[in-house]
């Protein structure tokens, strides 16, 4: 499955890019599995996702939990807890 990934704040800085389009292996089914798989892609990803529990995710611009299924997603975003307002 081909998905557009977007990264924000320190997740973006650690990975070193704001977005990328990648091919995800078929055995990756959930957001947390995707984070674990990304973490294995290189040092910068390992650094970004080393504390995966604090990282939030959105699928197609809606907040999702780590156990959410990624099937059918067009855009998946990863970011730290929000600090707006």
């Amino acid at each position, binding site marked *: 499955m081909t998905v557009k990934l977007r990264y924000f704040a320190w997740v973006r800085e650690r990975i070193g890019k704001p977005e990328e389009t990648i091919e995800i292996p078929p055995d990756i089914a959930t957001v947390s599995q995707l984070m674990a798989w990304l973490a294995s892609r290189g040092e910068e990803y390992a650094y970004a996702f080393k504390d995966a529990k604090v990282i939030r995710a*959105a699928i197609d611009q*809606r*907040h999702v939990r780590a156990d959410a299924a990624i099937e059918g997603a067009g855009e998946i975003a990863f970011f730290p807890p*929000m*600090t*707006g*307002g």
Partner: protein
Amino acid sequence: MAAGYIENMKATVRLQREPFDAAMVAADLTHGRSDVGALVTFTGVCRGDEDGAPIVALTLEHYPGMAESEIERHVAEAIERWPLLGVTVIHRYGRILPGENIVLVATASSHREAAFSAAEFLMDYLKTRAPFWKRVEKAGGKSWIEARTIDDAAAERWSAPPRGREAAE
């Protein structure tokens, strides 16, 4: 934007880089109408210090598209939960200097309870659910502001249905 229960209900969400005039935006909610009895405005301002050290500026990063839709969904929820006559939310992004406005929530209603509650609800959600991230610039460098658990707790209290809402709704 979802339609409110009340005719002539005015809802506005704006994301912008430029500063805004809070008084002018609030005045818009009562302009030309006499049914508003309560107008609450909250303005978040960039403080000149963080953890006791002076700051140079804040930079707000946001997720374009999602930020708008998240705020609009929460405005729609506020309209559903309280009898509002008007809501305006403005959130800035980009570089903001101490003393400048960051965010505005203005709510208008016939009576104060709805206006106060809806404004608090919207601010609590903006803090914890709207995709914005603050980075602070100090003399020693830049760092991301960490989320505070007290903000999560403030947002959590709105999960229970508000008083007076029908359980069967």
